[in-house]
Each structure stands twice: as structure tokens, then as C-alpha cells.
């Protein structure tokens, strides 16, 4: 059975989606999502063990040998993503039960869980597939389900956010489609490995160059790289808390992975970073993203918007890493990808608890939180320090890795941008802590009810994970290590 894992980890969540619909009972649907998450996590762990030695799992769908058929490829470069996405899914499943029930009308919840299963399927599919068009299809699955999920937010503004995301996201997807098409026209192939083998002969072909540009612009939209980040703040801030948690921790991350996969193992660094100036463009956009995102975060009056903007900044960090096109850089990217997912996930989860207890996450509603809700506030404070990159938090580890990578390449300006952005992070995190700790509790902060255990546990699980990765970063570091060598090593591009 172990040979079938690459297929199963995607098929089981897929199977759970229609079942959610069939049962139409909240509990059953929730169990289905939990099952899907656990199953994919199990598969991911097993496969991580299988590829630990640096080898690659290839799975031929329908038994048709690629490039005739579609294949799944599991290797060092996507195992971290599989683990990340499925782990977050499990956490969100634990977290979401009460959170969703408190925010969504109960008749919709089974459908919502179906959407979550589909989103999980889509993300895992993008990560696992070795076929460019198949990647597009799964990208659309993930996108469509996330549009629906975001639209489920409380306020009417959520609908607008979802629609804007839909339009921008679809344009991005069509750009990817165009790029894939142009590449297909000059190679006749859709299989990533086959493309990687055929493309070098076609280097210099203008259609191919344009194709690469379209693909990367398309992914840049999905990654919310500055200046294509417009959709992100509204989308993350307006979505239901559990959804924000899931998307913030996985959505952009998977897009970033796809970008790296295409850049290094399909088009090849030689084309992307030497013939095309994507390294310089990437670094400058990354620096701008760090600065703009962090600065904007400082001016937010709503916690979820603040977090969303800081996500824009952190996408910048990750982009800066792989734009160096060095092993260290890619490693730093993966490291920050994992760490930031955990940190931001915990923060959005905590925000969800506040949403449940206070009915609002506007900053002034948080005054005196340190006394009224010490645990939740503690989670926010600790994870916030992670965003800043205080030593012994996960944030510092990945920022350190990124800093050294940047210095090795002599990218002083980017480093400066990174430092400034970290200091801005001090400002926006400091604002939250200050309000929560040094302001008297206001009327609304005298919170109603108690925090559901499941939500608290899930949140703190992520917080503790981020702390652990800060103190003992061996696990993420080794994953990132394997990923970088798989992407840049002979095995990959």
C-alpha cells in the first residue's frame, strides 16, 4: 500500500468532500474533514520517511508512463509543504469546529467543510503533481474553494473581498494558462521533468521567455507579491477565523512553492535568473513588500487587517530568499515559509478566539486583554515576538538564515530593508501588546463566555511549535536543507 501513498494523500481528502455533502450533518462533515486532514498528514509523514534518503517517489496516474500520462512526484522539495499543509489542516479541524459554529449558520456548515476538504485537495494536488497543466487544474480547485470560503465571512465586505480575489485570481490563473500554453507550443510537453529536459535546447526562444514571464506573473498574483498583493488583506481579514487561519498558513505558501518548483525544476535557474532578471526583480519587489507591508500594518486599526498586511511583508522575506538562487537562499525561504506559516496561523487562530469572545478584533476592543484573557493574549504576544524575530523564536531563526544568505551575496540593501521591516514589526506588535497590557479593560473587553478548549489548545499548539522551532530548529532546518538540495541539486533542475 505504501506505493500508493502519493495518490492516496490527495484522493482521500477528495473523497471526503462529496461525503460531507452526502451526510449533510455538521458532525459527520467535521469528522470527514478531520479524517481527510489526519489521513493526508499520515501519508505525508510516511512519504517524508521514504524520501528522507534524498530519493524521489514517482507515481504514474492510470499507469500511463509520463509524459503520456500524468505523474505525481514526491521529493525533498515538496515534502515540507505536504507536512505543513496537512498539519495545519489538522489543527484547523480541531480549532474550526467551535469557531465555525459560532460564525456560520449551521445549515451551511457541511458545505463549508466540503469546501475545506476541496481546498486541502487542491493545495496537496498542486504540491504533488509533476504535470504543469494538472497543477493549473488543482490551482483552480484550491482557488475556487477559497473564494467560497472567504465569502462566508461575517460582514458583507467579505463578499466583495471574495469577488475581488476571484477576478484577480482568475486573471492570474489565465496568465499561468497562457504561459503554460506558450511553453507547450515550443516543447510539446506538459510533464515537468520532460520539460526540464527539453527546455535548455529552446533557451533564447522568445515565446518560451514570454511563457515563463506569464507563468511567474500568474503565480506572483497567487503569492500576493507586492505590488500584486491587493487582494490579500481584505481576503484574509474578512474570511471566517478558521478559514483565515488555514489560508494564511497555507495558501500563499503553496503558491510560493509552485513558483520555486517552476523556476528551478521546470524552466531552470539558467533561464529564470540568468537570461531573465528575475533575481533582481524579485529582490527589489521583496524589499518593497517588506517595507510597504510592515508600514501598512502599523496603521491598521483592526487586528486581522494588521496580521494580513504583515503577511504581505513576510511574503517579501520568502521571495527575497529564493530570488538569490543560491542553496542558502532557497533554504532560508523554506525555513521562513514553514516558520511564518506556523506563527501567522497561531496569530489568526488567536484572533478567531477574540472574534468569538469579543465579537470584534478592532484594536481598541483589545484593551486590558492581558488581564481579561491572559492565555489568548499570551499567545498573541509570544507569536508576535516571533513576527518581530526576537531571538529564540522561530522568526529569528529564519531571518538569521535569510540574513546570512543575503550577506553572502552582498545584498546589503535588501538586508537593510529586512532590518527596517523587522523594526516596523516591533512597532505593530508593540501596539497590540501595549493596548492589551497597559490599557484598562473597556466595556467590550469584559468578555462574554469562556474560550472553547479546542480553540485554545489548537492555538497554543501552533504557538508552542513556533517557540520550539525557535529554540531547536533542527526539524525545519533539515526539511529546508533537503528541499533546497532537491530543488537546486542534480536531482531537481
Amino acid at each position, binding site marked *: 500500500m505504501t506505493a500508493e501513498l502519493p*495518490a492516496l494523500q490527495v484522493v482521500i481528502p477528495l473523497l471526503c468532500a462529496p461525503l460531507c455533502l452526502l451526510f449533510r450533518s455538521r458532525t459527520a462533515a467535521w469528522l470527514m474533514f478531520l479524517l481527510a486532514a489526519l489521513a493526508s498528514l499520515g501519508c505525508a509523514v510516511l512519504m517524508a520517511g521514504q524520501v528522507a534518503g534524498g530519493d524521489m517517489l514517482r507515481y504514474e*496516474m492510470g499507469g500511463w508512463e509520463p509524459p503520456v500520462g500524468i505523474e505525481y512526484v514526491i521529493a525533498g522539495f515538496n515534502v515540507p509543504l505536504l507536512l505543513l499543509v496537512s498539519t495545519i489542516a489538522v489543527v484547523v479541524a480541531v480549532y474550526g469546529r467551535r469557531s465555525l459554529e459560532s460564525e456560520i449558520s449551521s445549515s451551511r456548515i457541511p458545505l463549508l467543510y466540503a*469546501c475545506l476538504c476541496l481546498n486541502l485537495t487542491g493545495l496537496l494536488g498542486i504540491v504533488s503533481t509533476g504535470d504543469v497543466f494538472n497543477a493549473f487544474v488543482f490551482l483552480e480547485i484550491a482557488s*475556487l474553494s477559497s473564494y*467560497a470560503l472567504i465569502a*462566508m465571512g461575517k460582514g458583507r465586505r467579505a463578499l466583495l473581498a471574495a469577488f475581488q480575489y476571484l477576478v484577480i485570481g482568475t486573471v492570474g490563473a489565465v496568465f499561468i494558462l497562457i504561459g503554460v500554453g506558450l511553453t507547450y507550443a515550443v*516543447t510539446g510537453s506538459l510533464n515537468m521533468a520532460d520539460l526540464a529536459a527539453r527546455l535548455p535546447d529552446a533557451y533564447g526562444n522568445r515565446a518560451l*521567455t514570454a511563457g515563463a514571464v506569464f507563468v511567474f506573473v500568474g503565480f506572483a498574483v497567487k503569492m500576493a507579491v507586492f505590488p500584486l498583493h491587493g487582494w490579500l488583506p481584505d481576503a484574509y481579514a474578512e474570511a471566517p477565523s478558521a478559514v483565515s487561519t488555514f489560508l494564511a498558513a497555507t495558501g500563499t505558501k503553496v503558491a510560493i512553492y509552485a513558483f520555486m518548483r517552476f523556476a528551478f525544476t521546470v524552466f531552470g535557474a539558467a533561464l529564470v535568473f540568468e537570461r531573465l532578471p528575475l533575481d533582481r526583480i524579485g529582490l527589489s519587489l521583496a524589499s518593497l513588500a517588506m517595507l510597504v507591508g510592515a508600514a501598512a500594518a502599523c496603521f491598521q486599526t483592526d487586528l486581522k487587517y494588521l496580521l494580513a498586511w504583515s503577511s504581505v511583508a513576510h511574503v517579501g522575506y520568502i521571495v527575497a530568499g529564493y530570488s538569490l538562487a543560491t542553496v542558502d537562499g532557497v533554504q532560508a525561504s523554506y525555513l521562513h515559509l514553514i516558520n511564518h506559516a506556523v506563527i501567522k496561523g497561531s496569530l489568526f487562530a488567536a484572533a478567531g478566539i477574540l472574534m468569538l469572545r469579543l465579537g470584534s478584533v478592532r484594536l481598541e476592543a483589545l484593551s486590558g486583554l492581558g488581564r481579561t484573557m491572559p492565555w489568548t493574549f499570551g499567545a498573541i504576544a509570544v507569536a508576535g515576538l516571533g513576527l518581530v524575530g526576537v531571538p529564540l523564536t522561530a522568526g529569528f531563526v529564519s531571518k538569521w538564515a535569510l540574513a546570512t544568505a543575503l550577506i553572502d551575496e552582498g545584498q546589503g540593501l535588501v538586508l537593510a530593508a529586512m532590518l527596517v521591516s523587522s523594526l516596523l514589526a516591533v512597532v505593530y506588535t508593540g501596539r497590540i501588546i501595549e493596548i492589551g497590557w497597559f490599557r484598562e479593560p473597556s466595556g467590550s473587553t469584559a468578555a462574554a463566555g469562556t474560550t472553547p478548549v479546542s480553540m485554545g489548545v489548537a492555538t497554543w499548539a501552533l504557538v508552542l511549535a513556533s517557540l520550539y522551532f525557535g529554540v531547536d530548529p533542527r526539524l525545519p532546518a533539515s526539511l529546508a536543507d533537503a528541499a533546497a538540495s532537491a530543488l537546486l541539486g542534480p536531482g531537481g533542475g
Partner: protein
Amino acid sequence: MSMFVLMNLTLFGILAATAVTISRLRALYEATMLTALFSLVSASLFVLMDAVDVAFTEAAVGVGISTVLFLGVLALTRSREDVTPRIRQWPARVVVLLAGGMLVYASQDLPRFEGATTPVQVHPVTDVYLRESQDDIGVPNTVTSVLASYRAHDTLGELVVIFTAGVAVLLLLASSPGPGRREEGEGPAELVLADYRVLRVISKLLLPFILLFAFYVLFHGEYGPGGGFQAGVIFAAGFVLYGLVFGVDGARRVLPRPLAWAMIPLGILLYVVLGLAGMLLGGEFLDFQGLRPGDPQAGQHLGILLVETSVGITVAGVMVAVFFSFASRRAAR
């Protein structure tokens, strides 16, 4: 200038004219109808380029389903567009210029149109799909065999996409207390045409034929254009027509809502189970060779048939459900 080129140019001309008009039109009903025309013309272009299945689908979807959906939405909302302020046009121009420039740049190195030695044509898979497929699968319509067997996983993905859309629309529209939403069984006034005897009779007459045609398309997909998706759309179209004439409740009497909703997950389940069956019979996921032990070709046939069927079921279910959830929602005006 060959006949082919001439037709191409004419059709493209029409398309461009239509597109420009759409962009300038502020009356959305007209714009929608022109969009349908756009789809129709592009469908004929597809035929011209030998993509009969695509043409079939585009006609069914572009002209049929999405037009109906657009009209339904316009009935629910406002059908006139405000003037777009000038400021909005500048970013648009910039983006279009950049993207267009990039495309023109690309076009210089694109392989010759309809050249026989382009990378696409000479790639090994071409031979597999066009020749070897006859021995591996034995289905004349190679599109079907690629769709349902070689790249069956894409088709599964496609099915999941449409399923996602169905779930999403239900999530957004069905069972949600929109302002002034009318009770079960009462179709929006704009859509009830049952007072016209001719329409009543004809639509009643047509329904069985449409459904019959749907099944024909479904099972004929291996030999000619058509397949599960087109069949599903046509099947749904039958009920859509019926619904347009007799209102939602009328259509519901023929196809009860639970049934329509049950169809949505059913198709996907069938598909996935089929794939898993291939796995259990010793092959990979979606491997149909083993379905008929000892006779791979027959196995493939069976697999493809089941794939088409499951696609048809889900697509039909989704389309009907989507249409109903639009139709059974009253305008908030």
C-alpha cells in the same frame, strides 16, 4: 489566400467586432447576448480548427449554460452599467499594453500556425495518442481516450472543479435568507412563461428528446464528438428549459431537489471509487486495465464509459442545482 484562411479571418473579424461592442455596451442584457454570440462564433472557429469536441462543449456551455446564468443574475440585479470613470482606464491600458507587448514579442518565435513539424506535432506523445491508443484502448475518438484514460486525472480534477463550483453556489445562494427571498416552489416572475400554450406544449414535448440526446452524446462519446460533460450539460439544459417555462417548482416536480443534490456528489464518488478500484486490482489509481481481468482493452472501454457517466451525473447535477438556486432567488429590488 486559401478558403480556410478566409473563413478564419471572417470569423475572427466577427469575434473582434463583438468583443469591442461588448466592451462599449452599457446595456448588460445585450452584452450578455453578444457574449453568447461570441461563444457561438468561437465554437465554429473550433470546428474549423478540427476541435469538434471543444466546439460542442463551448456551444453547450458558452451559449447555453453561462448565458442562462448571466440572464438569471441580470434578472435578479440591475441590467444597466454605469459609465466607467476615465481614471479606471489608465491602469487597464498599461496592463494591456504590457501583456500584449509580451505576447507579440512571443509570437515572433511561435511555431508556424498549422505546421506539421511543430514541437507539439513531433513530440512522442502525439504518436501514442493518435496511433498506439488504437491498440491500448481502441477508442476511435482519441480526444475521449486522452481525456478519460491517459489524462483521466485531469478530468477528475475538472470534475472536482465543477463540483467545487456547485458546492460554492449552494453555499452562497441556497438556504440562505436573502432579503425578500420567496418561498419554496415559486419561481421568479421574470422566468415563468407557462402562460404561453405553445411553449408549454413544445417544452413538454422536447424534454424527453433532449434527455435522450443527452444519453446519446454520453454513450457516443467514444466514437464521435461528445462525452460525459457535454451530455451532462445537455441533460441539465433540458431541465433548465423546463424550468424557464414552468418555473422552478414545475421543474422540481420533474426532478425533485434532493435528487438533483444527490447527483452532485454521486458522480465524483463513482469516479473516485473507479480510480480506487483500479488501485485495488493491482494497478495505479485510475488504472482501468485491470477492470476486465485479462482484457485490458475491454477494461479501458468500461473505465472510460464509467468515467463519462460519472462526469455526466455530477455535471448535470451541478448545472441543475446552480440554475435552480439562481432561479429560486428573488430580485432584491
